[in-house]
């Protein structure tokens, strides 16, 4: 192995595991993305850190490889539940406060330990949280990579908020052009945006099918989100999301359901516990299916590609609606309203929230949400579990919290 190839061993191992997959779908999409990252590393091509609410269309149009650092973290947790721990510890040892979101600590630690390919550019919006804003300033400080922030107004319905936001997006185009030394071809962008529209149609159709009762397939419709972060706007991403949809459709046609007897429907309106992949299946064995989750939740209009201006506006508009960005960029209402909508439309019996220490914006909505949920008779479980670090609350401890909650609901 060359020195370069030895780096990022865990991710290269994951890539080796997945790269043989030819069937379109989530796994192939993951393999394609890792493959693109490693080619960029090996060939010295620019890599862009796109924070987890920044979708890939502009990168696809400019042929820049996206590397969402939070996805880099979460993907390795499928291979090793403790994969982020070393970097989390390294960041804390370097003085980073322990209450910073562990995803962010892991990013800082990864950079310090050289466990993530260094970025040539960094892009993020000013949402959803303080963690992310200040962490990426630290990333810029540590790597010296040019960083572009998309500055998001707090109230999008006021004044010229949308114009300001669209101009942020135009600034992003200039930033990417400058640092990649490429010029955006608007015909290419149109193609990409249309491809992205096609992909999102499949995503939205998938979400509709998850409203069926009993649920045809367990878990949120996550493939759209993965496409969004890594390849949205490419035919491969569209094909992958369509494959997920086809599977869903075929199950519906055949009358197949997620579990033999659906006893309760869960709305998991937060990110999953990334290192505990079996948790959803374990709940399903009890008859509790997850019909909607923040990861797959999307609510957007297609992009009007009739002119370059309308295309950029459409992309900018869509960038406000990415999972977590849509709910986290403003007042509590955004998350609360979407969560209530998810309960209603996906026919949830209860809400489960993995209370990720660090996620202060979301935890700060909880008190208000609890009151509303109580009024409406929606049972809610919130417990503290770190999504990137199994040490504070183990899988057994999580199950010990979830089981009695579900039992109570199913006994009703």
């Amino acid at each position, binding site marked *: 192995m060359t020195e370069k190839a030895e780096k990022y061993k865990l991710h290269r191992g994951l890539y080796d595991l997945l790269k043989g997959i030819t069937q379109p779908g989530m796994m192939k999409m993951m393999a394609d993305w890792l493959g693109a990252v490693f080619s960029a590393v090996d060939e010295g091509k620019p890599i862009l850190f796109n924070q987890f609410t920044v979708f890939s269309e502009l990168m696809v149009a400019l042929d820049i490889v996206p590397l969402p650092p939070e996805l880099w973290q979460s993907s390795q947790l499928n291979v090793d539940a403790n994969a982020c721990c070393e970097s989390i510890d390294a960041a804390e040892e*370097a*003085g*980073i*406060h322990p*209450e*910073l*979101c562990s995803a962010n600590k892991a990013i800082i630690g990864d950079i310090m330990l050289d466990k993530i390919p260094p970025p040539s550019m960094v892009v993020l919006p*000013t949402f959803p*949280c*303080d*963690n992310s*804003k*200040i*962490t990426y*300033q*630290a990333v*810029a*400080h540590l790597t010296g990579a040019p960083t572009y*922030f998309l*500055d998001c*107004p*707090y*109230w999008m319905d*006021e*004044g*010229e*908020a949308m114009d*300001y936001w669209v*101009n*942020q997006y135009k*600034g992003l185009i200039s930033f990417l052009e400058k640092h990649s030394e490429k010029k955006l071809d608007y015909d290419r962008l149109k193609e990409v945006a249309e491809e992205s529209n096609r992909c999102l149609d499949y995503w939205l159709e998938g979400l509709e099918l998850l409203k069926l009762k009993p649920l045809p397939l367990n878990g949120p419709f996550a493939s759209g989100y993965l496409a969004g972060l890594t390849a949205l706007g490419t035919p491969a991403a569209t094909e992958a999301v369509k494959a997920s949809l086809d599977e869903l459709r075929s199950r519906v046609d055949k009358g197949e359901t997620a579990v033999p007897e659906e006893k309760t429907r869960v709305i998991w309106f937060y990110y999953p516990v990334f290192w505990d992949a079996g948790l959803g299946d374990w709940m399903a064995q009890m008859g509790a299916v997850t019909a909607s989750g923040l990861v797959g939740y999307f609510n957007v209009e297609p992009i009007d590609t009739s002119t370059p201006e309308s295309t950029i506006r459409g992309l900018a508009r869509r960038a406000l609606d990415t999972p977590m960005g849509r709910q986290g960029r*403003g*007042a*509590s*209402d955004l998350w609360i309203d979407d969560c209530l909508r998810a309960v209603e439309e996906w026919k949830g019996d209860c809400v489960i929230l993995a209370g990720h*220490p*660090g*996620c*202060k*914006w979301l*935890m*700060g*909505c*909880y*008190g*208000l949400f609890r009151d509303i949920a109580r009024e409406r008779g929606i049972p809610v479980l919130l417990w503290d579990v770190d999504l990137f670090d199994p040490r504070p609350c183990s899988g057994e401890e999580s199950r010990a919290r979830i089981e009695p909650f579900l039992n109570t609901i199913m006994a009703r």
Partner: protein
Amino acid sequence: MTALEELTKPADTLTNPHIERWKEKDGKVIGYYCTYVPEEIIHAAGMLPYRMRATGSTNSELGDLYASHLTCTFCRHSLDQAMRGEYKFLDGLVALFSCDHIRRMFDAWRYGKIDLPHSPFYLRCLSVPFKVDAPAVEWMAGELDRFRRSLEDHFQVTITNEALRQSIKTCNEKRRLLRSLYELRKKEAPPVTGAEALAIVIAGSSMPVEEFNQLLKQMLGELEGRDGFSDYRARLLLAGGELENPAYIRLIEELGGLVVTDFLCFGVRDFWDLVEEDSEPIAALAKRYIQRVSCPRMIDHPRRDKFVRDLVKEFKVDGVIIQRLKFCDNWGCEGTMTQWEAKKDGIPCMMLEREYLMSAVGQMRTRVQAFLETIRR
């Protein structure tokens, strides 16, 4: 009572005789949560801008209902005070997305979890940009104009450009006077302690600014005859977020570390930069508030970094202490970056984590003592 005594008193209580007198004359008081709310606009509306504190709070039981265990304790205590009706002297409240904690606390007000003193109560969350460039300034100007109009509509007042200009001048005067006070702190034997300086800055946002300016002028005169403090072991810069308790600094100073300057929001970040007096007032305010020396909420770390280094030189600082409320992410990373830089420059620097109520005093004492040892001036 000397002017210094008078100016160091308001920090001890939530409200004070100045506010009471103002209220007796039917004056309106508008609370605001952070230094990005332009006090000039409130002042030009004929109202008293009051920077929110939680002084006097002893627990946060009620606030905890709508905060989480990850919310900084300042916000929990402040929300608790609100729920207990301790801010009944307010006629309105203005906040912004200063941080995740403040914005969520403000939502509890919006959702009616507070027993509001009046109905309708003026509530506004400003949409303040995070960037410091020209488009952000332009956005801020639009936002400040909306703010101005909403105050006018709610209170049926008119805020003229002339009134705004006058308010800018008055608030600038306050800033100039505070800078004069800080100039004195550059001396080998500064005439005020860090604890006194904090209390004075707090007074500046807890009473009518004209009265404050008057007292401050008087106090600067008084200080000419005061012996300076020279028996210290080290000159310190105190950085960090919300700090409204002079006793915290007193504790550091009792151990021999004299705080000669700061990088606090009840400190230099509040008053260092002036507003242009001859420009269109809203545009001038927007420019000043966006491009002033920033808080870590703003995407502006390199400029902050340079500002702190300059302060260290100008005030002949021997060591930097960063105080950070637990759970504050902005100051968590910012403080760490400051530590990294200080280390490179060979400036002793330590981070002290704290809760809103002073606790673990023994531990803090030990850490500060050890820090002062390492400075060995």
